[in-house]
């Protein structure tokens, strides 16, 4: 096949009306979706009704998919930088020219640093088999996902304690009696299926305790709200565990059989009484006792959500871990109303998709971040991305010459863009593969436009769950511009490096057929409904089948991985001093209409997006002379100063200020988002290399900012 032809699926431009099964691409949740195509145009998007958990629902971001497709403000051809990095000087290039250019730079990198000098980061998820295969085929161990600024701490806590990821814990909301959330803003983060199940459960009478220094939309739906001091949730958990043990409000038979290290736990919490935690968290001791009395009558239908975005502070790993320990104490695993453990196909006597990752030869080079080796609690399958940037700067333990940011925007996602740019400046090659202009794309050497989620097909994905499923994103329409699907882009780079065997496929259907070999499922089956369930109905595992993939086979409070890493199992709580005067902890969060930095340039979402305001407590705002609606200046210690209006409310803790993330973009060609609001990540000065040592997650909410009334009222251009 010529390398200049876009590889469309057959009959993509066929006339008439048809339904294509796909997965939404407007955020990283990837909801299953039905696309109505009429004469080559998308006319309707809705949830895939073959998946009862979502029905036809889609969120505002999903609804804005057609507007995104029609938007011209996205890269339309490969672009090669023609001026200094970040100058915005580009020249259009053909795919052959851009890919040849990349291959040439990669060869120079390999010559200087070896194959290990090539790295890639993405945002993980169901399709990441492809990107991991690309990196492995390159001969490099350095694949990273984005989890240092997302779920790294909880992922690693679950891995160290249960032996599998928290992603395998599926809440049985239909029967849950009480849900406990640590800043987990599930209403506004908005995974459609989760929110549907949550609101249905709340209608049914489920209790929900939300622990957050700020009243999010989730707090506004909860039955209990603990407005804790910022970064104090670990102290809260130590006290809850103390009280659970004291009141003997736990499942003794479950603990006896499935938990190792109760002595370690008893010792760690012997003095962490409800009174002890009160000055740390601000939650009255009596309320902790009352809470424990309540859950004692509700277990095992009590779920402590271990967190999602857990890149908060240097003990966030232990917040997740103590939540996971609390779930074990509730005995809520694999029981109705608790967590159903995600099943692998073999549980139902089925075979899973063949991983592309098995195709390239093994890579023996050590990972640059020491994940899985010098840092045993860090999962080598996802890595610790900040350590890649540290290595770029220092060339230690070895040099990195080329970096692919694949639909990932570290200059928005990671703290301290100034520090990150210093690291990126050391690269010989920075490539952004994306459907839009990201901050990182704008700073890249080459932008490769990936076809949008409606214009491309992805590899098949397998999702664990009570019933594991295969899901597909089929191609709905032909690309509007000179873009390509990722599998083709990666194959073409590998081809130029003489390493194409790993992705030696001519069409996506060929890849699908290979993935499906031996599963008893065909491409035609997949296309019938976009989703194939590997069992008729879910089956709960028996106690005898319950297995934890730790060395002991039990839930390890005395984690073998942590012992190997020389980490304390349950370290003492590290208190934080309260910022005073004009200083505040900076908290950030989500709007339900925005997905991080990727949505604000969408015409419909820009319109729906709220004005970004700085939440500040009235008792802290008054002495600073800040009134509701006033313009304020906010700085994090670097050269960046943001201006936005104040929102005076008692629903933000006195010690903190809060703002939405995803604003303050600087790419001139994305005109609707340009200069709108403040980039919280640029206020997280000095935080690029500050992280929880056990879980690798960045300590983002330890950021302290200064706030003062703006000298002049009004936005800066």
């Amino acid at each position: 096949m010529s390398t200049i032809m876009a590889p469309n699926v057959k009959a993509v431009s066929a006339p008439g009306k048809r339904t294509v099964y796909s997965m939404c691409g407007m955020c990283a949740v990837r909801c299953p979706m039905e696309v109505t195509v009429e004469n080559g145009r998308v006319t309707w998007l809705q949830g895939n009704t073959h998946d009862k958990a979502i029905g036809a629902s889609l969120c505002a971001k999903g609804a804005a998919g057609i507007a995104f497709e029609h938007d011209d403000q996205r890269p339309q051809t490969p672009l090669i930088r023609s001026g200094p990095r970040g100058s915005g000087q580009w020249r259009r290039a053909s795919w052959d020219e851009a890919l040849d250019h990349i291959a040439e730079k990669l060869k120079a990198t390999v010559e200087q640093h070896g194959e290990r000098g090539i790295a890639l980061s993405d945002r993980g998820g169901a399709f990441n088999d492809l990107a991991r295969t690309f990196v492995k085929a390159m001969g490099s161990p350095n694949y990273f996902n984005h989890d240092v600024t997302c779920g790294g701490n909880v992922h690693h806590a679950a891995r160290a304690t249960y032996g599998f990821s928290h992603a395998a814990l599926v809440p049985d909301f239909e029967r849950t009696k009480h849900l406990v959330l640590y800043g987990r803003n599930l209403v506004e983060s908005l995974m459609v299926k989760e929110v549907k199940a949550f609101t249905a459960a709340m209608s049914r009478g489920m209790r929900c305790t939300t622990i957050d220094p700020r009243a999010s939309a989730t707090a506004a739906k909860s039955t209990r709200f603990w407005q804790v001091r910022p970064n104090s949730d670990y102290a809260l958990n130590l006290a809850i565990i103390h009280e659970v043990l004291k009141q003997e409000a736990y499942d003794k038979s479950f603990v006896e059989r499935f938990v190792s290290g109760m002595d370690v736990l008893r010792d760690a919490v012997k003095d962490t009484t409800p009174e002890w935690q009160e000055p740390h968290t601000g939650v009255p001791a009596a309320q902790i006792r009352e809470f424990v009395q309540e859950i004692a009558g509700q277990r095992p239908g009590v779920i402590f959500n271990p967190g999602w975005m857990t890149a908060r502070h240097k003990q966030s790993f232990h917040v997740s871990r103590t939540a996971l320990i609390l779930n074990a104490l509730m005995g809520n695993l694999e029981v109705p109303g608790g967590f159903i453990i995600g099943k692998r196909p073999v549980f139902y006597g089925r075979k899973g998709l063949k991983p592309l990752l098995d195709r390239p030869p093994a890579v023996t080079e050590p990972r640059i971040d020491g994940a899985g080796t010098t840092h045993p609690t860090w999962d080598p399958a996802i890595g610790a991305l900040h350590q890649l940037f540290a290595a770029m700067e220092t060339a230690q333990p070895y040099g990195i010459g080329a970096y692919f940011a694949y639909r990932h925007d570290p200059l928005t996602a990671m703290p301290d863009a100034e520090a990150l740019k210093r690291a990126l400046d050391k690269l010989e090659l920075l490539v952004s593969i994306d459907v839009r202009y990201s901050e990182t794309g704008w700073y890249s050497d080459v932008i490769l436009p990936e076809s949008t989620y409606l214009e491309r097909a992805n590899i098949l994905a397998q999702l664990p769950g009570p019933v594991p499923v295969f899901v597909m994103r089929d191609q709905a329409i032909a690309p509007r511009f000179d873009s390509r699907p990722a599998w083709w882009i990666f194959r073409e780079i590998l081809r130029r490096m003489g390493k194409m065997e790993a992705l030696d496929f001519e069409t996506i259907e060929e890849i699908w057929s290979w993935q499906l070999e031996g599963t008893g499922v065909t491409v035609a089956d997949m296309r019938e409904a976009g989703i194939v369930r590997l069992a008729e109905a879910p089956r709960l595992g028996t106690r005898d089948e319950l297995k934890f993939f730790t060395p002991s086979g039990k839930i390890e409070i005395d984690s073998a991985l942590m012992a190997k890493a020389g980490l304390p199992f349950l370290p003492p709580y590290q208190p934080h001093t309260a910022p005073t005067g004009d200083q505040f902890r900076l908290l950030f969060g989500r709007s339900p209409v925005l997905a991080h930095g990727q949505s604000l340039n969408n015409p419909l979402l820009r319109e729906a997006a709220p004005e970004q305001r700085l939440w500040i407590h009235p008792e802290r705002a008054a002495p600073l002379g800040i009134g509701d609606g006033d313009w304020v200046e906010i700085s994090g210690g670097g050269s960046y100063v943001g201006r936005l209006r104040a929102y005076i409310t008692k629903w933000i803790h006195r010690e903190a200020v809060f703002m939405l993330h995803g604003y303050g973009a600087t790419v001139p060609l994305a005109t609707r988002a340009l200069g709108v609001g403040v980039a919280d990540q640029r206020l997280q000065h000095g935080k690029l290399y500050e992280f929880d040592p056990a879980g690798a997650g960045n300590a983002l909410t330890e950021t302290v900012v200064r706030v003062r009334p703006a000298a002049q009222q009004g936005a800066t251009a």
Partner: protein
Amino acid sequence: MSIYALRHDAANCIGCQACEVHCKSNKNLGSGPSPCKIISTGPIDVDGVPRVRHTFMPCFHCEEAWCVKACPTGAMTKREKDGIVHIQAALCVGCKSCITACPWGTPQWDPATNKVVKCDYCMDRVDAGLQPACVTKCVTGCLSFGLANEVPDPRRERYAHYLLAEPARSE
């Protein structure tokens, strides 16, 4: 009033604005007009816990519709068979009388066409036996649509569930 009801179960609404964008997307609207709108206020303090109030503002499809009376060209029309108030774009001259007349500001100005657009319950979908776009794709299912007496009303049922759940809570 039209024979239909579009019910918003505010207690089950999360204010995610999906309805607004589904509506706009279905009507191919760009920036500006919003035929339906979720107005969220708060957080406010209700017995010590934060609460956000959500109000859904589509068109009420009035019996004696101000907009229909104000329209000088007959573009704004009340459909005989079911009372849906809709606008015929070909007859709209963009005078904005309907926008002025409506007590709730429901008719919307579309700068792309220099005409008015408004909620018509997606009557092409209704005629095809489907539900309006906002209802079809609502995230939580808090919107429902149908003949006025047949629209599911979850409020009584939920109240009963709350009463039942109460003893479990105090245990």
